[in-house]
């Protein structure tokens, strides 16, 4: 009974959001919130990522298929062509499109959870270790050649929303970037992602 009620509330909330494009109003004092705000934020974020990956796949399908035994030149040319197509298909993409304020706040909280507990110092150290520090980043830009990739610790990844295999989370300095690994393209990034 309780589950049915909760499910009904979720559906109602989703309908309200789909109609207005905004989260439902705050509940009256003393009333429980109608939705789990983080779950909703996570679902919306995942949907944006799925839309991005659908675009990636659609554009990749327009390219000549990469040969099974591709040379380094062919691998490189394919990645650059895909990157160019994606950038052209989202010319007005800017920082925060995939990671609006509510998503950033949510991801920051999740990262903080992954960095908590008795192993926190070691986990932070593993992020710092190969971190290249400040690097100039642009949405739709190429992940800089020769810049090493930081470790994304397992406890942090376990707290973050799951991504399709075409996209990865990575830290650069204290930024979190969404990296299209096949196009080597920065999809979006957020500042101050690692709580102090």
């Amino acid at each position: 009974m309780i589950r049915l009620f909760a499910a009904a509330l979720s559906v109602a909330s989703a309908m309200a959001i789909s109609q207005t494009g905004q989260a439902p109003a705050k509940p009256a004092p003393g009333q429980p919130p109608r939705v789990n705000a983080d779950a909703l934020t996570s679902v919306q974020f995942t949907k944006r990522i799925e839309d991005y990956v659908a675009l990636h796949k659609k554009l990749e399908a327009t390219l000549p298929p990469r040969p099974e035994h591709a040379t380094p030149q062919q691998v490189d040319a394919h990645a650059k062509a895909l990157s160019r197509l994606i950038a052209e298909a989202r010319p007005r993409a800017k920082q925060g499109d995939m990671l609006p304020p509510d998503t950033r706040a949510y991801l920051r909280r999740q990262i903080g959870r992954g960095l908590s507990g008795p192993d926190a110092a070691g986990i932070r150290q593993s992020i710092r270790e190969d971190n290249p520090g400040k690097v100039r980043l642009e949405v739709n830009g190429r992940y800089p050649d020769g810049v090493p990739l930081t470790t994304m610790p397992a406890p942090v990844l376990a707290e973050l929303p799951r991504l399709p295999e075409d996209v990865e989370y990575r830290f650069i300095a204290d930024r979190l970037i969404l990296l299209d690994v096949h196009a080597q393209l920065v999809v979006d990034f957020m500042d101050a992602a690692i709580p102090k």
Partner: protein
Amino acid sequence: MRRVRHRHGLALTVCLISAWLVVDGTATVGPAAAQAPAQQPLPLTLPNKPDSLKFGVIGDFGTGKREQYLLGAQMARVREQFPFTLMLTVGDNLYGGNGPKDFLNKFEKPYKALLDGGVKFYASLGNHDSRQQSAYEPFNMGGRTYYTFKAPKQSVRFFALESSYLDPQQLQWLERELDNSRDDWKIPYFHHPLYSSGGRHGSDLPKRKALEPMFLKHGVSVVFAGHDHLYERVTPQQGIVHFVVGSSGQLRKGNVDKETGFTDAVNALEQAFLAVEIDGDEMYFNAVSRTGKVIDSGLIARPKRK
């Protein structure tokens, strides 16, 4: 009862170095180097049995510098005596860039003799490696950043992991694959070491916490890693022997933490790779330096089958 027996300890036999052709003081070494005539045999201590699995391990190698080429030539020389067919890489396959010229100068040229001789490389990725490398055919990754494959001989299965990105999907995949494997030897290899006396990086404790319980649960006996630019064999940890083979390119000489208390052998003075032979329940290994010395050797015995 797993054990490591030291057959020769540090067998420091000096070998003659062939005449290297170095062009412009850069990394170019002439093809004659790998075919230098009238060399003494290398002092390998591997049994070299006809039906054994023979393979090598290199790591942190893709510098394109002279030392990488010298070790590459030495690897070809080892193969003349010990015909290994596979080469595992524990990451940092290409430093500085991952463009077509990098693949050529930091991989295809230094290991040309091995590639021409039919040695199959099976790469894992390090923090300096673009994910694009997974599509590079000579790395045999099949487009995946983590994968598993069965060795062509003996009861051996390898697991190449992407240790900078141990997300739940990869960990679940690894658990499943280790569980499914009926092979006697389950050998994971990846970049970041769970145990290392390297002064620069050292042991990666969060990764140890994520991976070691799985390795113990599924009967892993040996692990290969890199990242720290040295060669190290770690005292068995809960029965597992950990090798750090980050020694195949640019070294950090003397960058060894002597206080870890778990080192059985370490060398940060000379580039080296590992030559390995598995025959039944026994694994023999020789760490061979770029000047042809065997800097470490031994035998790892896994539990006998019932």
